[in-house]
């Protein structure tokens, strides 16, 4: 074992003291300090923590930190290294149940915690998942494949392409539905790009994650998994969807269209919302209740089209008052081929940016406008400034969400350089990314404090 591992995470004074007493991590020790005596197990220390303390797990299960400088003696009494493993139980096979494939990208939809260090160990094999969420066996025959092991914020083109190709393979193999475990932070980016890369899917493709990790008794992970697996196995919705909590209560999940969904709260369980429209369906442990009928239906063929084009030189610019043109200029100078602007109101930026937009136009860079209000359409005719910008080549992106416009532009530019062709593809909806109309219930943001809303919340456990 390397020295780094023997004194895992320790540095500075604490490391010196441990080395001096040859007290490696996992040693059972009696530590004498200038203040008194402690008995326990020396734990690894988190890299980010200070170099002054030694972490001891007491018999009661509590951890405490001891000032390394106060240690006068360490008596090593034994060693108790723990290796944690998720218990595996064979996932039962039932020929009457549908086949569902779970693809893992690295999010910890199912995991458990190393009780001593706090490290999260993902549960992923069917056996491990069955050990954690046995209810899954009532729904389907589950197969799993780990595609990557990255955090959600590190997902990128390589992973998008890999996932799309994996989906194509699974459809070819004839699975009934696909579930994709994903970190929640960028789940909506991935949902959007998969909506473009995977065309004409005959089966449901359901993305799922959790807002409370599954090492917590109150986790939403198990229920999200059940909901998503049920959707993949049983629903007739053959689209890319995000399946996450509807309300914060453990009551039902919502199925959001992959191109209209967004993470809207940094920590709430019910963080994913469909923007500018209503979700496709509700899912509970008992049933799937469609909320609309205009979704693509499940089919028996395997005629999926996988198109993994992706141009990396595309960016989103979130406009703010007083933005200077050098922001745009630097993108131009760095060879970007596409820019999505999240503009104010109906889709505006300030005048000082115009020369930069003109340069972009001259360099044949595709520039698309979206709105930072998220809800509503871009409308650049209402004010002169909008018209001016269109003159400068900025194309209104209708009600495409900024992140969706970003991944779509990358996908389109990966296929053609012809700006007319780009525009045609950008403005033709492929997977519901723009809609012709916003229904009157597409903008329901409950505003607390209003009596009707309070009554609703108190009655329905939202």
């Amino acid at each position, binding site marked *: 074992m390397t020295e780094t591992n023997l004194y895992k995470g320790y540095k500075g004074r604490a490391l010196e003291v441990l080395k001096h007493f040859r007290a490696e991590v996992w040693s059972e020790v009696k530590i004498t300090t200038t203040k008194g*005596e*402690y008995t326990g197990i020396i734990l690894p220390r988190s890299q980010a923590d*200070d170099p002054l303390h030694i972490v001891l797990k007491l018999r009661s299960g*509590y951890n405490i*930190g001891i000032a390394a400088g106060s240690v006068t003696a360490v008596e090593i009494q034994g060693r108790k290294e723990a290796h944690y493993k998720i218990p595996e139980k064979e996932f039962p096979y039932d020929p009457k149940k549908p086949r569902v494939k779970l693809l893992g990208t690295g999010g910890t939809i199912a995991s458990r915690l190393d009780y001593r260090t706090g490290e999260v160990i993902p549960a992923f094999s069917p056996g491990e998942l069955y050990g954690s969420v046995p209810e899954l066996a009532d729904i389907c025959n589950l197969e799993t494949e780990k595609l990557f092991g990255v955090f959600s914020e590190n997902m990128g083109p390589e992973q998008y392409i890999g996932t799309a190709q994996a989906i194509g393979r699974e459809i070819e193999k004839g699975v009934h539905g696909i579930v994709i475990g994903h970190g929640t932070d960028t789940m909506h980016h991935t949902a959007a790009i998969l909506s473009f890369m995977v065309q004409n899917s005959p089966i449901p493709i359901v993305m799922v994650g959790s807002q409370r990790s599954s*090492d917590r008794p109150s*986790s939403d992970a198990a229920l999200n998994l059940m909901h998503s697996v049920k959707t993949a196995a049983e629903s007739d919705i053959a689209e890319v969807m995000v399946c996450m909590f509807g309300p914060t209560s453990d009551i039902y999940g919502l199925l959001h269209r992959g191109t209209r969904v967004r993470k809207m*709260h940094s920590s709430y369980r019910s963080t994913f919302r469909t923007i500018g429209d209503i979700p496709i369906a509700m899912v509970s442990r008992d049933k799937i209740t469609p909320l609309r009928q205009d979704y693509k239906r499940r089919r028996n063929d395997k005629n999926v089209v996988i198109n993994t084009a992706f141009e990396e030189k595309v960016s989103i610019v979130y406009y703010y008052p007083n933005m200077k043109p050098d922001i745009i200029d630097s993108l131009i100078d760095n060879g970007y081929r596409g820019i999505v602007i999240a503009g104010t109101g109906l889709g505006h930026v300030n005048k000082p940016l115009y020369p930069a937009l003109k340069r972009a136009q001259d360099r044949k860079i595709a520039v698309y406008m979206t709105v930072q209000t998220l809800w509503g359409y871009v409308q650049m005719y209402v004010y002169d400034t909008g018209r001016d910008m269109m003159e400068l080549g900025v194309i209104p992106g209708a009600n495409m969400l900024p992140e969706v416009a970003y991944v779509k532009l990358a996908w389109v530019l990966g296929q053609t350089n012809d700006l007319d062709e780009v525009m045609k593809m950008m403005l033709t909806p492929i997977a519901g990314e723009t809609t012709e109309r916003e229904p009157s219930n597409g903008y329901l943001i409950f505003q607390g404090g209003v009596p009707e809303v309070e009554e609703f919340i108190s009655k329905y*456990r939202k």
Partner: protein
Amino acid sequence: MSEFVFKPFEEMTPEDYAVVGFKSGLEIHQQLLTEKKLFCRCPAGRYSTTYDAEILRHMRPTLSELGEYDGTALMEFKTKKEIIYRINRDTVCTYEMDDTPPFMIDEDALDIALGIGMLYDCIMVDELHIARKQYLDGSIPTGFQRTTIVGVDGKIPYKDRFIRIVQLGLEEDACREVSDVGHRRTYLTDRLGIPLIETVTAPDMKTPHEVAEVAQMLRRIVRSTGKVRTGTGAAREDVNVSVTGGTRVEIKGVPRIPRIPLLTYNEGMRQWNLLRLRAELARRGITAQTFAAASEDITKVFRKTQFLSIQSALAKGMTVYGVRLNGFKDLLRWQTQTNTTFSQEISDRVRVIACLTTLPNMVHSDSPGEALTSAEWQMAKKTLNTGDEDALVIVWGPEADAKLGAQEVIIRAKEATIGVPSETRQALKDGTNGFERILPGPNRMYPDTDLPPKSITTERLERIRAKLPPYIMTRERWYKEIGVPADLIQFLSVSPFANLFERCANDWDLSPKLVSVVLVQYPKRLKKKGLPVEKLNEETLEAVLKAVKEGKIFKEGLLPLLEQVLASGKNLDELLLPKATERELRESIEQVVMSLKNRKFAGEESRMRRAMGLLMEKWRGRMEGTAAALKLSLFLKEGQQ
């Protein structure tokens, strides 16, 4: 095992407790007096039963270190409870709802906890690590309590020895349970998150009375800081009890210390009697290996029953299960606690785990009673092949629950062959206790990855130490030496005005007796008169005592003055009138004597008393009583001459 049989509570001697090896330790939870909660910025200590919203959650067991489900976890999962949280916007934010990560620990709460740790003579922790302690009963929406150790290895002197303080924790309080019926448990969330310290003693108490005494002492020590909450529910005791050969059993939620002796006595008796039951089973040849039982759906036996409980259950389509316990005849009547038998242990488990909460939830053949007809008993026994040496237990409820209930009957009966199961038990009003849940294992603790460790500096500790009250016992010894009345000592030492007392007695040289009466007795007397004593702050008391010291007022005037302050709400200065001058006093005496001149009295003594009364009415606090009395009596004598 000794042949000892528990005597009635009053007759038990310390020697008797020594015979059974009675040992008890305390876990005292005490809320701290802070403005805010421990890990969020909601107000602490504000309670209301009204709520704006409800949310619904379930708790899932997570795997323990060895990949096994913890006993408690499994039990709670078996119960399949829906947990409802009632949310009041004013007292709860998204943190308590487990929809927002924790904020940094409340520094005030930490200061108070560190101070108390020093009072306990603990070794203070150099770096705090926040842990998560799992709770699957739903009492905390996250499913765990955030908790940290601030000090270990303390001690407090008691009798001729020390009671060891194992550790002092700082943690967030849990929800208040509203109801628990069937598969639904409801909680109010206002109390959730209030800072709390948990004091854990070693099992150093040898009799039930010692447990109560130590609990009182610990309570008074923490109160001496003036920084803990008081009132209903602000302090709650858990008591751990074991006897030789028994198991550590935790009795939760003892609301009042005077209940402790009877509760711990009953638990000692319960364990002792369960051990005797095990011996009896062994005598009958029933051990964990030979134990046998069977259960079966016997709904059909009761199609025409007149027993209301089963009748109405059947009307709702429920199921009846019978359980045969081989060789258990008469053992369900085996006494466990005062007026409580072994059948209660079984019924409790069925209630809690199978959610058969409507009582009675079972009947058994050891007390057949009037409930079922003998024909029904015969039939049920026959269906289950119950022999003369066996016992039969009958439970009913929704199919799945009744089946689970039958399994629990078997599980609990089998545990009798092992002795005392590790359980958390609930304090009941009559001094006995009932099953609450399986005692959680040590594996339910794990690090809270949401919060970084927090270093506790020596400077911080010294700053807190400088403001600590002297250790309460030291204080009390000193009170005794300087002549504080014995009945006031214990009140004064934990009074929020204890520091003021010290200033008065040490620096101002006022009589300790007078000051202690003013600080302890006067607020009580004023409260009896219905005055708002909560407005009586240290400042006011300090001002009046200062007035005494400076000779601006006599001690007789203190109580009426405070009364006026509280009743009128006026400033002390406005009410503090100058002392009577020699001349004023002389004139008053003359007036009083004149006014009484033509009145008849039983004797001169009563004339004197009446005159003094009138004089006091006018000058109370503004003249010195003894001197005035002397003057008055001289004047009266002069008049006679």
